[in-house]
């Protein structure tokens, strides 16, 4: 009975997904209202907050790419916040500050390692701009990125806007090729229905723009995020998006604002990254379920559906994988799923090559490996995420310093990790 139920739910989810994707494509091609009306004359002051931890020279490259932005230089600044890197990241920040004098670069440093979310909050203290753009320190930004993000805020109900994240290293190996496909499909297709209702469930932290007043309103919540007293320093992007929605603002992805990130190229790195993401998805689900009535009354039904179904799909994937393995394990090794994946890969590869040549994947067959990865992901990452909700480990970057002490009384931890600013 249980497997039948699981399969029924799976089929239902697949049907919903199919409808959603079909709907997304229809919206994308034929409904102008699915996209925000951008006003490029709207040019608020912008602070680009760049928390950094052990990124080395990459931070220099990141700041360099921002310095080439076509947004008026006097209207934006970069605030780079080092989270006590043990490598030469901080020195590279200072170097960038010196080299790219065409823009204002401010460099700060946390007193103790605090995690990305709190580093953003610390950087925010030095900002007075109307618009805050939080970025990852390993990304390269398109010259249009800031302009494109800012243009979307001409709609007063828009609270947060994200950009499309491309992959810098699509052809490094099969792992990066798989991620290239997934990133592309996620931004170009999956998020389109969410864009339509201005209710994107998660704007990527790689390129996240938010109104200053809104971020200031949410900041205490970011600082005080905890899981039964254990500070939570992961998934701040999902949290911020969620909080934006709950405050009645719209969230949106502008696919014309592009940045490229270096995706994990080894299985352990990918595993840790996916584990971190899955944890934040699970936390978000629990949060949504805990406050479901508020969600139902406040948010658009499409938003509630996204917030509930997306994480539920992850848990369901675990049940499906268990059912398949306990029932007919060889079913996974059959040719049908592989052919299906390869067909999707072939289409995506063509589309990416046509519309985003920079991310063109040389070997689309690599996507076939996603089949194996999806089993690992469904079986282990979801389970591990459910069992390590108390973890504060970022995972993908080595950490030597002691983490911020546990906040057992639920305070906002402002006394910890405060920043020191250097130069201006």
């Amino acid at each position, binding site marked *: 009975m249980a497997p039948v139920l699981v399969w029924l739910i799976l089929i239902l989810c697949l049907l919903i997904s199919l409808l959603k994707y079909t709907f997304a494509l229809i919206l994308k091609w034929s409904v102008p209202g699915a996209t925000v009306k951008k006003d490029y004359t709207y040019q608020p002051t912008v602070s680009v907050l760049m928390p950094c931890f052990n990124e080395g020279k990459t931070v220099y490259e990141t700041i360099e790419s921002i310095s080439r932005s076509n947004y008026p230089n006097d209207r934006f600044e970069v605030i780079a916040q080092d989270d006590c890197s043990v490598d030469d990241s901080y020195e590279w920040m200072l170097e960038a500050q010196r080299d790219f004098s065409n823009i204002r670069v401010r460099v700060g440093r946390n007193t103790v390692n605090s995690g990305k979310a709190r580093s953003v909050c610390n950087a925010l203290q030095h900002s007075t701009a109307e618009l805050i753009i939080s970025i990852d320190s390993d990304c390269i930004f398109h010259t249009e990125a800031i302009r494109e993000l800012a243009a979307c805020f001409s709609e007063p109900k828009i609270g947060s806007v994200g950009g499309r994240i491309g992959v810098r290293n699509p052809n490094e190996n099969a792992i990066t090729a798989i991620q290239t496909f997934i990133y592309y499909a996620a931004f170009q297709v999956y998020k389109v229905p969410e864009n339509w209702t201005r209710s994107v469930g998660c704007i990527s932290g790689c390129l996240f723009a938010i109104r200053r007043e809104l971020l200031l*309103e949410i900041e205490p919540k970011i600082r005080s995020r905890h899981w*039964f*007293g*254990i500070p939570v320093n992961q998934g701040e992007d999902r949290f911020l998006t969620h909080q934006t929605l*709950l*405050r*009645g*603002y719209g969230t949106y992805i502008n696919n014309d604002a592009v940045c490229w990130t270096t995706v994990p190229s080894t299985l352990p790195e990918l595993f840790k990254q996916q584990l971190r993401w899955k944890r934040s998805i699970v936390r978000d689900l629990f949060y949504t379920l805990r406050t479901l009535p508020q969600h139902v*009354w*406040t948010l658009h039904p499409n938003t509630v559906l996204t917030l509930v179904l997306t994480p539920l799909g992850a848990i369901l994937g675990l049940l499906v994988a268990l059912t398949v*393995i306990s*029932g*007919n*394990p*060889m*079913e996974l090794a059959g040719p049908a799923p592989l052919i299906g994946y390869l067909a999707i890969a072939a289409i995506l590869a063509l589309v990416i090559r046509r519309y985003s040549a920079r991310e063109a994947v040389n070997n689309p067959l690599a996507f076939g490996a996603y089949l194996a990865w999806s089993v690992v992901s469904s079986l*282990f990452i979801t*389970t*591990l995420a*459910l*069992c*390590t*909700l*108390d973890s504060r480990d970022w995972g993908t970057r080595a950490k030597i310093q002691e983490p911020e002490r546990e906040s*057992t*009384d*639920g305070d906002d931890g402002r006394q910890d990790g405060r920043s020191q600013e250097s130069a201006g």
Partner: protein
Amino acid sequence: MATTDVKMEEVKKVPAEAKAPRIQPMVYKSVVTVYRIFAIITLYAVLLGVLAYGFVMGFYALNTSWAAPVILSPADDKSLDFTQKLVTTRQTLEDLNVDMKRLQDGVAEVTKHRAALLALAPELQAAIVREKQHNRATGPQLLELDKQKQADNLKTQTVMAQIKEVEATIDKDLAAGLITKGDAATQRAALNQAQSTYTDSKIGEILLTDSILEKTTTDTKSLDVLDKQAELISEVAQLDIAIGVAQKQIYEETKQINMLRQALATAKSTPYYLSVDGGNVVYFAFVPYDNQSNISIGTAVYDCYLNMVACRKVGTVKQIFAGEEHAIHPIFKTDIRGFLIQMQLDHTESAKSKTVFLNRKPLFF
């Protein structure tokens, strides 16, 4: 409106949080501790599950001594199909046997009739020959006698021409009273007698001519006899054909009966026959071809806990069936080819195990 509501809620929450009871950290700590214990147990269980799963998969990929017990119920599809075919075959065999008996009886009867006809044929032939020989001998004699007869009749005819004169004389003598009426009557009777005799003689002459014709030529009587002879020969030929057809049919049906008997004999050596025909409970197991080398009659059967450890001998292999069977691999769930064996089980509950092992314990314990 929604934004304002949320903000209001946030504002209201601050004092509530400020007044959070001091017991909260303890509650949090307890929850986290319980969660961590649960998480550690879960993760170790998952780890053990994965290792066990991997081991089981590897074990069954490498092991060549396992067999999957099969309980054949008379009500399952294969058994029902087998039963139906068995009944049909038996019925067909019965029908063929009855038909054979009828055919054999018929052939015997026809053969007897044919023998009788064949026995009649030479007698008829002999009779014809004898008659021909006789006719050949008596024909000329009769011809000679016929000639004499004709000559006699001719003479008699001349005599008979004078009878009228004699009658006239009698009348005259009677009228003259020379003779009495009695004498006249007597003389007239004598004349009639002579006339009658002459007529008889003429008839005899004609009859003699007929006889001569019969004996010297082929007459219709002879033709009738020849027709009878031809009929006899034809009947014998028809009987020969009927016997031939019947014998051919008997041959075919005998072949068919033999084939059906062979099929029944083969069916009797299948597990399904034992299952549906025998009154006793019989235990079978499916053995994939890969594991064939470990099997012979009398091979020990082991049943194990968790399908691989703490094994004990539960019986022996009683019979190996030749027919190919298809089954689903108990672990990999793939379609595999193999055959069935009959097990003599001392511990009948082992028939319900997922797998048993043949010849040896799979892990030496």
